[in-house]
């Protein structure tokens, strides 16, 4: 492919990405999303500053977000996972054009990833960087500070992308998924135990370092990305898989499963890429991030939160990722060919959520309270919060986003409603978790009640979500909602 063709493909991919989002997320309403991100980032900066958090900690948190976002975005270009085939497979025409046009698939993917890096770097990472403005003030140097922070965040984002791309490239060369995960865990443990975390961190957060460290990170990212693309096997395709009949056995084992809807959801989850481990990985990543941030705050300020309250409140957020996994492999429209109501489909998802979500949240929570040495009362209150808040976050997600939490994530209005809903429960809890250490009996009782109340609200929201979305689907408005 010539450079001219590369440029043509790049522009077309960029335009397609924009149209994809504009179509999915309410036309030009999608433009609000970067503004909302900037507002959220700035609000977080102001709020954290008021609670004594330093600008350095705030910047560190932003880099963690950028890195994780990059890790996730790296999968998009390859559309190789089952979830991404579902989300993007029917929507991206250009990504599959190497089968119909004289274009190299490897080069097309490279162009796609460059496009993704610039697209998300502009629309999502830049608003994150703008959040620092309240901390530096509206001075003449503010644009320069924002630009430096953006560059640093962008490099962290790209680093995350190339790590994922490298893992996928290895996968196409026949390296088993479990071996890649095991290697990643081993590397993480080795870095942790040898004290390499600080070195790694300084390498990743070039905002605090020298120009040289930024150049090293940029060159490394380009080198790893290029190697990964060179190693990627475009002809890789998964052999067709067979399975023994498990539906009836699973359906019989469930205490309730009207119409087999729960069994179908659980089998889809278990057999898709990553199996039932996926929700645990999502929860594990959240646990690791929160534990890391708690460690950073503790090392700088000497303040350590009540681990039960803190982790109980935060880990409930895995309700969103768990529900997301449970809805990736079917659609409401699919069920409308059968004599089942939309309400029944939502009810089945809720039961599946409880079955999958309970262990998904309980395991990392237990790890956290043991690792951070929570008191019994703190651990008990945290467990109440975890159960109640997760049900609340679940109800909020289902009510706001219906059957498509992933697709609606970038809709500014829905995301805003979801964020406010989460903040109402989470922010006061986190403040209490930091201020009252360990929790007194009255505080514990109040938080326990909060867990019950929010759990009740979540139950009510999830019960209303079925009829709400049922009416939308029957009116034909759900697809464009």
């Amino acid at each position, binding site marked *: 492919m010539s450079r001219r063709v590369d440029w043509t493909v790049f522009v077309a991919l960029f335009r397609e990405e924009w149209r994809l989002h504009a179509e999915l997320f309410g036309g030009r309403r999608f433009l609000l999303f970067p503004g909302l991100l900037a507002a959220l980032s700035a609000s977080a900066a102001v709020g954290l500053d008021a609670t004594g958090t330093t600008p350095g900690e705030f910047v560190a948190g932003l880099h963690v977000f950028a890195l994780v976002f990059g890790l996730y975005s790296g999968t998009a270009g390859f559309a190789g996972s089952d979830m991404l085939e*579902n989300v993007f497979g029917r929507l991206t025409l250009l990504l599959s054009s190497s089968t119909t046009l004289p274009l190299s698939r490897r080069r097309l993917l490279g162009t796609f990833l460059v496009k993704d890096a610039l697209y998300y770097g502009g629309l999502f990472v830049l608003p994150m960087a703008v959040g620092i403005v309240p901390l530096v003030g509206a001075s003449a140097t503010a644009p320069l500070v924002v630009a430096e922070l953006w560059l640093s965040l962008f490099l962290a984002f790209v680093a995350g992308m190339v790590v994922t791309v490298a893992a996928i490239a290895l996968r196409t060369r026949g390296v088993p998924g479990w071996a890649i995960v095991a290697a990643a865990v081993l590397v993480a443990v080795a870095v942790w135990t040898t004290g390499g975390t600080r070195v790694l961190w300084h390498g990743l957060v070039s905002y605090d370092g020298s120009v040289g460290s930024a150049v090293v990170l940029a060159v490394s990212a380009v080198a790893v990305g290029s190697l990964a693309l060179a190693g990627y096997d475009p002809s890789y395709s998964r052999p067709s898989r067979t*399975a023994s*009949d498990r*539906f009836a056995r699973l359906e019989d084992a469930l205490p309730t499963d009207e119409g087999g809807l729960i069994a179908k959801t659980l089998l889809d989850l278990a057999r898709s890429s990553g199996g039932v481990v996926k929700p645990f990985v999502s929860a594990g990543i959240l646990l690791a991030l929160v534990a890391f941030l708690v460690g950073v705050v503790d090392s700088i300020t000497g303040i350590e939160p009540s681990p039960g309250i803190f982790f109980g409140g935060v880990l409930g957020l895995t309700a969103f990722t768990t529900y997301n996994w449970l809805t990736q*492999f*079917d659609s409401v429209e699919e069920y*409308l*060919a059968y*004599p*089942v109501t939309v309400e029944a489909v939502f009810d089945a998802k809720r039961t599946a959520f409880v079955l999958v979500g309970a262990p998904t949240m309980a395991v990392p929570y237990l790890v956290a309270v043991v690792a951070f040495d929570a008191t019994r009362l703190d651990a008990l209150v945290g467990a109440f919060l975890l159960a109640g808040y997760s049900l609340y976050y679940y109800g909020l997600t289902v009510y706001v986003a219906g059957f498509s939490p992933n697709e609606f994530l970038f809709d500014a209005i829905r995301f805003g409603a979801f964020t406010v809903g989460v903040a109402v429960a989470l922010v006061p809890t986190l403040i209490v978790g930091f201020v009252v250490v360990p929790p007194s009996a009255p505080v514990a009782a109040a938080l326990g009640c909060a867990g019950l109340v929010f759990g009740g609200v979540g139950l009510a929201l999830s019960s209303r979500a079925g009829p709400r979305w049922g009416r939308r689907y029957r009116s034909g408005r759900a697809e464009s909602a």
Partner: protein
Amino acid sequence: MVAIRADGLEKSYGSVDALSGMRFSVSRGELFGFLGPNGAGKTTTIRVLTGQIVPDRGTATVLETDPVAEPIETRRRVGILPEQESPPSFLTPREYFEFVGKVRDLDSDRVTSRVETWADRLGFRSKLDTLHTDLSRGQQQKVMITQAFLHEPDVVFIDEPLANLDPLVQEQVKRFLVAYADDGNAVFVSTHNIDVAADVCTRVGIVADGRLVAERDLADGAEDGDSLLETFLTHVDDVDPRDVPAQMTGQP
């Protein structure tokens, strides 16, 4: 005896009028072809008649049920083969049919025997234990055809029945549809393939701009006149392809 009746159905999506007074009926024993170009309102009509969406105006009756008031009862009695591509399912066809049997409250032994019959008829017995997501599109279509007939419904709504099927299986499906209608069932076939409609249907309704603009009886002994293609072009588009300049058709 009328099995399907649509009376003045109207449905809009925002500023787009998908249905603008759709009116027709289909009797038992008929293989009714619903013929129209893309965007004519065919799929919306099926979705209204099967209770998936409600019309803005008009009424519908399917096997003496009202799909607006009692959508579940309507869908219990009919079979539906939707056109839209399904998301990837990780059930095998064997498990998927168990799921359909469970949803439709069918006896599991009956499901097993009917699946065997259909697997032999359409030639996918060797794929019964392969994950649905790993099947070819043609094999997936065979699975979807089977689920539509699994409960032997009196009325079947089929959107593009022959999509992705090889010619041999297309012939088998066409023959089956004719025989199924001959047994006193109503088969409603939505298609934009004129040859398919002309080949198997006893009657054809031509749809354009959200309403039925013409009907043709194609049953044995029906009066011959213009070809179905000519009738279709007359009602659907003012442009007759025979008027297209020769250089565009490649003819001298």
